[in-house]
């Protein structure tokens, strides 16, 4: 059957080209791989190869034709044995020489604030009124995983030392015993590799929980976290979701120096396709981790080593979850809004106590979700207090505080009585020396000073 040869797209950006030269004449036999023509684009002159064998029946676009749009028929190939009349019989649309190229894709929408859909913040989060147990954050995390693993066989845990060692920080203690080696897996020290493996497993229908001994080590797995986990649903038109939870300690422990102390919150919060959560309390740890495990999207779950041993009242109900995308007002106040996440929530609460002694009433918001950020709760608070201080362990440049400042301007500009102020880690690699390390991190005094500055006292 005669077929048309169309003007090929020789690069992703090519829209049209010129037939510089035909290398075959009408009637020539053509083998697979033979060069048919030279095509000139604004970038280069490229050769067009024949895919199938046959006979060049008819040249539609003559040598020298300019502005030939991609996909325009330029010739007709005949099968062996067909004659020229078959070429005429092939449907040919009128030869197109575009006057203008295809209109470029609509320019991206003018940047709008956080595009991810926000859960309704109108309904206040229902208060939990069931029974609670005092337990450490590490136990709360363990219980969250165990409870979910009991309900769904497809959930499994992998990471370094999670099984026989009972967890490098004892978070997965007891899980190997309860669920066995098939579902609690010790990996070699190969983050790039096993992160990729977890994504493949997720595409295959499993629900991995990947533990990074710290998020510093996840840097070598970033390609899979971002390019494989975060983007594939989008690239596959919704076919390949990645229900993986990537969890582990983030931020500064104590005395572990530059390569083991980084806060990655803003790096991950930057990426569409991820959910990024960071618990503070035991209730956060359990409720958020359960939500993360149940969520069909890739979730980056930023824990904190120093918080693992702290005790809180944690709900017993196995169906208790903390919703993704909802911040929590940990302490109500009227003079200033302090936003924080993870261990810094504790620092903010301590600062609020100190400020209260001096007659300043601070409202403390525990962000819990970094992506999506609960813009509504933050904005509503600032509309009430008229001032905002954001606190984070990470570096200032392009950190979470930068985002808080941006959304505050977008949603509550008219309510501000002072600029948003950020308390961040110092803009240096984490020092090893104990005194320098302490100076490099936010603390209660720094938060108090920042609040006073926005209160102009």
């Amino acid at each position, binding site marked *: 059957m005669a077929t048309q040869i169309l003007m090929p797209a020789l690069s992703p950006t090519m829209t049209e080209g010129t037939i510089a030269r035909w290398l075959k004449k009408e009637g020539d036999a053509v083998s697979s791989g033979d060069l048919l023509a030279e095509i000139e684009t604004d970038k280069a002159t490229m050769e067009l190869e024949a895919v199938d064998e046959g006979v060049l029946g008819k040249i539609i676009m003559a040598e020298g034709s300019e502005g030939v749009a991609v996909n325009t028929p330029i010739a007709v190939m005949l099968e062996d044995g067909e004659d020229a009349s078959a070429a005429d019989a092939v449907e040919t649309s009128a030869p197109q020489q575009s006057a203008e190229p295809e209109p470029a894709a609509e320019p991206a929408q003018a940047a709008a604030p956080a595009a991810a859909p926000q859960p309704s913040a109108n309904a206040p989060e229902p208060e939990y009124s069931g029974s609670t147990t005092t337990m450490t954050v590490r136990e709360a995390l363990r219980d969250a995983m165990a409870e979910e693993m009991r309900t769904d066989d497809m959930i499994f845990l992998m990471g370094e*030392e999670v099984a026989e*060692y009972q967890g490098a920080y004892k978070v997965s203690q007891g899980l190997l015993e309860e669920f066995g080696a098939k579902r609690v897996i*010790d990996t*070699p*020290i*190969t983050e790039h590799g096993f992160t990729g493996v977890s994504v493949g497993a997720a595409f295959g229908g499993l629900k991995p929980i990947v533990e990074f001994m710290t998020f510093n080590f996840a840097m070598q797995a970033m390609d899979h976290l971002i390019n494989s986990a975060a983007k594939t649903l989008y690239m596959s038109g919704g076919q390949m979701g990645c229900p993986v939870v990537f969890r582990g300690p983030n931020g500064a422990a104590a005395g572990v120096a530059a390569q083991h102390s980084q806060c990655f919150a803003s790096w991950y919060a930057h990426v569409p396709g991820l959910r990024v959560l960071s618990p503070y309390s035991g209730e956060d740890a359990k409720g958020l981790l359960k939500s993360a495990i149940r969520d069909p999207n890739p979730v980056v779950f930023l824990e904190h080593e120093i918080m693992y041993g702290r005790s809180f009242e944690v709900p017993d109900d196995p169906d208790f979850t903390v919703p993704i995308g909802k911040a929590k007002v940990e302490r109500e106040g009227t003079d200033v809004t302090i936003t924080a996440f993870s261990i810094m929530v504790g620092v903010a609460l301590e600062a609020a106590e100190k400020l209260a002694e001096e007659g300043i009433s601070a409202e403390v918001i525990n962000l819990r979700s970094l992506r999506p950020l609960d813009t509504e709760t933050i904005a509503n608070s600032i509309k009430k207090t008229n001032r905002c201080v954001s606190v984070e362990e990470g570096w200032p440049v392009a950190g979470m505080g930068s985002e808080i400042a941006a959304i505050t301007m977008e949603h509550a500009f008219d309510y501000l009585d002072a600029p948003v102020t950020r308390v961040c880690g110092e803009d240096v690699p984490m*020092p090893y*020396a104990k005194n320098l390390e302490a100076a490099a991190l936010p603390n209660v005094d720094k938060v108090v000073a920042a609040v006073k500055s926005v209160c102009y006292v």
Partner: protein
Amino acid sequence: MHMFSREKNFYGGHGIVAAQVPIGTGLGFSHKYKDDKGVCMTYFGDGAANQGQVYESFNMASLWKLPVVYVIENNRYGMGTSVARASSTQELYARGEGFGIPGERVDGMDVLAVKEAAARALEHARSGKGPYILGVLTYRYRGHSMSDPAKYRTREEVAQIRAEQDPIDRVRNLMIENGFATEDELKKVDGDVKKIVAEAADYSQQSPEPDMSELYTDILVES
């Protein structure tokens, strides 16, 4: 961990497991480039031996005949995970075979064996033949860190190796049996070493913490 000394050609303890392997390979690259007959000794453990970047390094070192000696300190455990549980093949000295890198297994508890093997490796690398792998079998008496409960091996295992294979004891016995030194002379060596260690520890503990201005130094090279 993060000690560095340009003066002593010591390019550091690096915090990310196996990251030092491409770095060491790069140092080898610089030696070849400058044609200065230098060799880089790159050390890593059995835990690091499965990292992809190790094999990327092996490939380049072999392809470009870089003067690098890869010393794999196989102490049988990567933190709490034995080599058997982490590695599909345990002959780590042979891990370079796929890249044409010769390797040998060395008894790391025998000082003289290590010395000889190292001489072979260095000669190979220095002569322009490219990288060499020493798979050194050794042991770790203590936990990986202070917080390691060490449930992954028995006390008996540790004790036995300490009693039968300790490298320093072996050297001591060798020297005494062959008349190279007397017990007293060796006791004095022990004493001297203890003194050096104590002085170093003292110096560390007595030294003042750095000045606050150090918080901001050495972030960038100022020009």
